[in-house]
């Protein structure tokens, strides 16, 4: 797994992605402070948008292998595709987890919401960011181009959310990965159903596991 971490660290775009995740939520908090009054979800809403960073990271991690035939080099070093995928997944998870924790603490501090009870909610943010990054990673592995998944995911994460729109159509939409996962740390959600934080996390994790399973299978069978 260390090689995968090193590979990731060698990508300048990965650092940009990490920076995005680290800096956007605090920035948004400062921008928002003027407009919205404080509520139960202050700081956490901005952290939802900050998932942009992990999404980009996940996309890059998957896409970088396809660029320039690097995939052939990687496969020569680690013949088992399954192990390669596992190592990559691990690298992405670790990187995003660290970024998430740092960003959460920073953002909440700026928002003045860094209280004792925030601990479990910060954990929720970290898990959400990791799962979101893996989601982007898996989809990019499948589609081989990062553009489509990144577009959909970015648009969906911000104010103009498809998932949210779908909840108007069917209550089942509350089980989509991003909405379910957000339950892990957002208390004031405007969606139907009432998922407990842990349940929400599990739903999102299930989505990601299924996606990675499919992506892994396809990756395994595909020509390099």
């Amino acid at each position: 797994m260390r090689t995968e971490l090193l590979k990731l660290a060698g990508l300048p775009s990965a650092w940009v992605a990490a920076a995005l995740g680290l800096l956007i939520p605090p920035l948004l908090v400062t921008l928002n402070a003027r407009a919205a009054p404080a509520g139960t979800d202050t700081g956490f809403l901005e952290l939802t948008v900050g998932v942009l960073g992990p999404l980009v990271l996940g996309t890059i991690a998957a896409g970088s292998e396809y660029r320039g035939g690097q995939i052939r080099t990687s496969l020569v070093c680690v013949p088992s595709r399954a192990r390669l995928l596992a190592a990559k997944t691990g690298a992405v998870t670790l990187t995003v987890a660290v970024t998430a924790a740092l960003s959460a603490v920073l953002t909440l501090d700026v928002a003045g919401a860094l209280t004792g009870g925030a601990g479990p909610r910060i954990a929720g943010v970290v898990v959400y960011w990791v799962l979101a990054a893996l989601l982007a990673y898996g989809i990019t592995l499948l589609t081989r181009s990062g553009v489509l998944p990144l577009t959909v995911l970015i648009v969906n994460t911000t104010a103009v959310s498809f998932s949210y729109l779908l909840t108007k159509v069917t209550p089942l939409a509350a089980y989509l990965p991003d909405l379910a996962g957000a339950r892990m740390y957002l208390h004031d959600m405007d969606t139907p159903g009432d998922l407990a934080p842990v349940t929400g996390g599990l739903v999102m994790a299930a989505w990601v596991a299924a996606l990675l399973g499919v992506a892994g299978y396809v990756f395994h069978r595909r020509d390099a």
Partner: protein
Amino acid sequence: MSTARAELLKLVTLPALALTAGLTWGLTALLALVADGADPIPYVRAGFLVLGVLAASSEYEGGQLRTTLLGTPRRARLQLAKALALALVTTPVAVVTVLLAGAGGAAYLVLITLLAAGVATVLRHALAGVVVVLGYYYVLGPFVRDRFDDGLWLPAAWALAAWCAATAAVLRRDA
């Protein structure tokens, strides 16, 4: 202008662009049907931004820029032709989108496409272009937009600025 004709041919024969246009139309129709009252344009705007990014960044894949410059070494003229061709191709896509959505303005959509293409030309990379353009419009945009009204002159000014920056970059850089 033969350069513009070549640029048109390039755009029309790039499968990713047709795919993006098709997906955008499909999404617009779907949203218009499903979410009564909600304006599809803020969602569908992304399609046009991506269209612009893909159109511009395709030049930097496979070393195609060199082939282009070998046929058209005058770079300012090339940039002008590219802008015209992109506007020409995007307009019907925008018109259909507006018809499907029952709201919005085609000119606005064409302008943001040009803007996205300008940004992508400076960045030379599809993914970076997508992140910057979408990141601006969807993440930072809501804050900025509240301060300005809804006229067309602002997107037009931005599109022009982006295109000038792109042209300057193309003129200066080694191929």
